């Protein structure tokens, strides 16, 4: 974990809604992992005031480059969208826990919706690369969008499933439905039980929680919660667990065993 100013290498539009920023990532700054995040100082003035968290969407240790994918939602992401390559970005990271590896023999099904797509694109690439070594199945990546013009221009791993609410691109329906189908289509059974990895909007997570429960499947969820410090100091990013306690999304998370989270309180 370090705070540093680093050059923006690329700031590219991926679709109507998404952009991708790639920055130089020095080797001694720590290793970005899928599910982990960085925070970005976006402004030289006092509004926006706080740093903004973004999950890593990729990391290339040889080239020394890390990336994140973001959606323009408000003032900070608007300012970020205007950052030109060559200017420097105020970055703090890597922060938070990453996705744990799939168990040997399991089929990782990665489900991303909305701004959750970045970490799952990253995880899909990683899990694929290390599938043989780790002994798990080749992962299936499922990404859900509202409409075709949201779908980002990204090289997705082979076998990825796209879906849109209106069927304008890929599979028509929700990412959770598609993920369940993908899990069933795999060698679903005692020797390749599915394990879901998910990040997305609250309704998607709630749907997945129900489906995972009825399948008896385990799943890892990267949660989003308003953050102030990003390093575990302010207790702002609390996530309610089913046992009634709170955990910090930035420190114990953002990746949690999905079944431990009280989604109703999110």
């Amino acid at each position, binding site marked *: 974990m370090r705070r540093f100013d680093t050059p923006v290498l690329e700031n590219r539009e991926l679709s109507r809604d998404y952009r991708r920023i790639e920055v130089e990532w020095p080797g001694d700054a720590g290793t970005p992992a899928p599910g982990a995040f960085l925070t970005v100082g976006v402004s030289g003035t*006092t509004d926006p005031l706080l*740093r903004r968290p973004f999950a890593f969407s990729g990391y290339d240790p040889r080239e020394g480059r890390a990336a994140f994918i973001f959606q323009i939602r408000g003032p900070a992401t608007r300012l970020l969208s205007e950052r030109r390559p060559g200017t420097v970005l105020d970055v703090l990271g890597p922060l938070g826990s990453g996705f744990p590896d799939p168990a040997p023999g399991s089929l990782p099904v990665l489900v991303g919706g909305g701004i959750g797509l970045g970490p799952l694109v990253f995880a899909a690439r990683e899990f694929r690369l290390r599938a043989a070594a780790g002994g798990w199945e080749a992962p299936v990546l499922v990404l859900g969008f509202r409409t075709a013009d949201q779908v980002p221009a990204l090289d997705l791993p082979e076998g990825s499933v796209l879906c849109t609410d209106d069927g304008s691109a890929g599979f028509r329906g929700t990412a959770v439905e598609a993920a369940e189908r993908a899990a069933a289509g795999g060698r679903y059974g005692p020797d390749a039980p599915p394990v879901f990895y998910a990040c997305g909007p609250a309704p998607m997570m709630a749907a997945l929680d129900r489906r995972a429960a009825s399948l008896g499947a385990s799943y890892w969820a990267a949660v989003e*919660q308003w953050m*102030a*410090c990003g*390093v575990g100091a302010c207790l*702002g990013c609390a996530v*309610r667990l089913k046992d009634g306690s709170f955990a910090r999304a930035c420190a114990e998370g953002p990746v949690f065993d999905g079944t431990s989270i009280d989604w109703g309180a999110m």
Partner: protein
Amino acid sequence: MNPDLSVRIGNLVLPNPVGVASGTFGYGSEYESLMDVDALGALYTKAVTPEPRPGNEVPRIVETPSGMLNSIGLANPGLEAFVRDKLPELRRRRCPVLVNVAGASEDDYLRVLERLEPEDGISGYEINVSCPNVSHGGLAFGTDPALVERLTARLKRSLRSARPLIVKLSPNVTDIAEIARAAESGGADAVSCINTLVGMVIDVDRRRPRLARGTGGLSGPAIRPVGVACAFRVSRAVAIPVVGIGGILEARDALEYLLAGARAVQVGTGNFRDPGTAARVLEGIRDWMVRNGASRMEDIPGMLDA
């Protein structure tokens, strides 16, 4: 000329005037890898209450123009877990550690202080009578001068501690100078100001408050003018040192407080924006002192032409 940056509060000498504010710095270790925690002028812990508190429902924070609201709700592991799990690492710090104390009754405050008094590794206490985010105690104490005086006097008398006791004031009052005088009469060694202002943000799409608890405490640069005005008034009302808090991001912000009469400062929300804030602020204060010919911290308040 190398200015003397030390600040005396009661029997305690802080190595420099720039501390980090309660609730914004955890117990120090969270920022360990990002900056030199031991170089701080003072580390004020998250509030400690007798019993463990889970804190308020979420969401607990929301950004506002040049500020933020929080309703953490004094979440903390409670007195015993603090002593067991947090104090050992705090004890190893080379910077002064001041424990921020909160409670729902006078007895609560006393209980925390009595338990902490025999423990090593604590340089002082900051009595939080100004938290807007809890239903009982907190802000209620801080708005009534008679209660503040009585609480302070009781804590001083029962404890007879060599450690300084700082009373943290709320800006949510008609006359903060009156509360400061009450703390001084009660025997406080210093007052710190300000805690957060009561605020609220409503999500007009979902038609509900952004914070689960409705209202929260406003901090950050937005409130700096309010904090500086409070420090100015309070430092003219009492003879004990004033610790200035509120919206400090840069050395010049801290210098506003020091010129207004504060003897030391705390960085709160600024830590979230840049963990290097306290170090940067200290460097800038030193430079300013050299440029302006101030050799000791006590020189600065007198340099204001007001």
